[in-house]
């Protein structure tokens, strides 16, 4: 048993040393991808959004609004158009993402208490940019509106500025964004994307592990043979996961507020789960390309399917049910919460227990797969050795 187990690990080790593919796919590519996404989102937020302004009023108030946008680093006011048609063309050519139109007689209408409107246009086709532009523009205009309101209340009702301020604000609402106060994309995306790549790598390499390594004629030795493969890919994946987590934490400074030991436990269980499942697929399907395709379809799009970005609660019911069966579902949110919230192990007990059940079930099915397989039906030149 032990001999077969060690031989199974040795076979994969030799393959890794000789052909380098396992090493490249599970370790090198994920590290490179983590460096890539870390660098890509390193500034955290979208800024310098290209903008055009059409100021038809050209009054002190309209110029104050214009300067507020020019001074804000979220916007790059690159165009001042003469009319709204020019602005439309800029949107059509994708040269701007935001536009502001201040109508003629704006200041006069404000003074006459006519509540005029300014118009904000956004290119809605790129959601993150539109969303950022919209929230920032609203913030700027709300501040200006409140300031103007205070001045007017104070002037028209002969009140002190502080009284006018209290009236203008009515109720103060303080909004605080916890855990990711800067709304950084880096904090939001990188840990999930970076580790999803590792689990894809484990799945793609382990999907063809069984046939490539020859099955023992003695069925009793196949259980330890399987175990060797699972442990090999699980361990390698675990190392890769930890390296990727460290890259995001230490190189790209994503705050890690939790206990690192929890990240170790969670990553080990994810890695073993994916490894066991992939070995199971490999034990059941002899066509390597089909096995690869199955694992690719299951694991590659995981960040979408498990609600890492678009939450599961907003998906249709079949998706909600299916998401719970993905190992990554029990990992991605927990890891992000470990980074950003510093959650404790107790809050993950359910997920950790799920992993243990998943590994056990997948291992049993994999065992059935290798027990029913006839050694001489192997394709693609795999030979049988004892």
């Amino acid at each position, binding site marked *: 048993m032990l001999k077969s187990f060690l031989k199974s690990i040795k076979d994969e080790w030799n393959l890794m040393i000789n052909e380098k593919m396992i090493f490249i796919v599970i370790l090198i590519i994920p590290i490179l991808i983590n460096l890539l996404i870390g660098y890509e989102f390193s500034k955290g937020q979208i800024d310098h959004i290209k903008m055009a302004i059409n100021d038809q009023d050209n009054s002190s108030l309209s110029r104050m609004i214009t300067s507020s946008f020019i001074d804000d680093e979220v916007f790059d006011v690159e165009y001042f158009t003469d009319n709204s048609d020019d602005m439309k063309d800029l949107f059509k050519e994708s040269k701007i993402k935001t536009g502001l139109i201040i109508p003629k007689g704006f200041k006069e209408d404000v003074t006459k*208490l006519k509540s005029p409107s300014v118009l904000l246009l*956004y290119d809605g086709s790129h959601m993150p940019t539109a969303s950022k532009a919209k929230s920032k523009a609203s913030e700027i205009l709300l501040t200006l509106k409140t300031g103007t309101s205070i001045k007017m209340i104070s002037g028209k009702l002969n009140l002190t500025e502080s009284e006018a*301020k209290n*009236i203008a604000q009515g109720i103060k609402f303080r909004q605080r964004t916890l855990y990711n106060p800067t709304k950084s994309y880096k904090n939001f995306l990188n840990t999930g994307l970076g580790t999803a790549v590792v689990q894809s790598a484990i799945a793609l390499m382990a999907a063809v592990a069984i046939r490539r390594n020859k099955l023992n004629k003695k069925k009793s030795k196949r259980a330890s043979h399987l175990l060797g493969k699972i442990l090999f890919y699980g361990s390698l994946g675990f190392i890769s996961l930890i390296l990727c987590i460290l890259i995001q934490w230490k190189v790209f400074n994503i705050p890690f507020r939790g206990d690192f030991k929890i990240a170790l436990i969670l990553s080990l269980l994810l890695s073993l789960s994916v490894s066991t499942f992939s070995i199971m697929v490999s034990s059941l399907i002899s066509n390597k390309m089909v096995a690869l395709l199955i694992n690719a379809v299951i694991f590659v799009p995981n960040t979408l399917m498990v609600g890492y970005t678009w939450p599961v609660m907003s998906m249709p019911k079949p998706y909600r049910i299916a998401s719970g069966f993905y190992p990554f579902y029990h990992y991605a949110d927990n890891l992000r919460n470990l980074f950003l919230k510093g959650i404790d192990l107790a809050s993950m007990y359910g997920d950790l227990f799920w992993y243990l059940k998943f590994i056990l079930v997948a291992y049993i099915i994999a065992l059935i797969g290798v027990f029913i397989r006839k050694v001489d039906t192997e394709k693609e030149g795999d030979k049988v050795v004892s």
Partner: protein
Amino acid sequence: MFLKYLLKDLKETLTDIDIIILLFIGPIFLTLLFGGVYVNDYLEDIPIGVLDYDNSSTSRMIVQSFDENERFNIVKYPKTKKELKGLLDSKDIHMGLVIPNDFSKDITNIKAPKAVILVDGSNMVIGNNAYAHATNIIQTIASGTQIKILKAKGNLSDRAMSLAMPFKFTDRLLYDPKMTYINYLLLGFIAVFLQQVTLSGVGISVIKKGEKLAEKKTLKRLFSKVFSCGFFSVLSTFISVAIANKIFNIPIRGNLSLALLMSILFVLAISAPAIIIASILKDKVKYAQIAYMLSLPTFAGCGYIWTIDQLPKPLVFVTKLLWPLIYFARDFVEVLFKNLAFESVKDNLIQMGIYTVIWMIVAVIIFKKRFKVKKA
């Protein structure tokens, strides 16, 4: 001669189950699968918690405004701030509303009392949605309160309204007024599916027939392979676009001929790295393993999640040098979705053409070197 090869390759591709499933069924299946994820336009019933220390008619009115809003679902009423924070930590709620003691009294005394909204920002999609909709509710309540105070000070309704609202701002979202995830993402995914299936199809075909292709008339035969794979992958891409439009209601406003031209040019461009990687690996399993690993990093770096102007310049430079998706994905979507004109995508198409010529020369050289059969 080329046509003869092309017809033969089209027939071969059509009868090769591995390849045809990948090229033809792949994008359609994945479009249906991914489209389903985003089929609901909005987040609804975001679980929130309310800590109402005041328990006055005003505070209850505020709580009711949140309760009646379809975006929120009040699931918890914690008794302390610590308990509220614990609920946010454990993901039981994604937002908390805290109304302090004497809230109503302070409004009456014009002291502008402060209510606090705590948003869990760890998932930005949920956090931003909760934040935006809470802001809408709050602004409505705050303006209403302000007008009430001004009226109490003896102002007429209209005057009170104008003092509270010296100017308004109206938002208009062009192209996607509802700003939905499905409109933002699905067409971009289809562009990546075209990349992935062409990459896999061309690479695997080249590996399967490598030595034969290298024997004679290599260029013609390689291009024949590329076009035969491209025919099916582009066809399935456009069926996927039709699915996005008809089933998932994504508006297609653009010029389909331009989108088709871009797709054909992209198929040629992506075939160059496909041939290079296939020639180096010469093993279809290894090739597939590498090809599947490329979807995420190439999508992440192509200017889709963040537009090119937001990416670090050295990264854009290196990506443009190495991988053609950056010339294609965003423009392809904007042509379809926004009706972007040829003039606006021309520069990227020219750059992609230059990329294709240079890398295709490299690809053919490497291919010939790796697959040429040595004469005995």
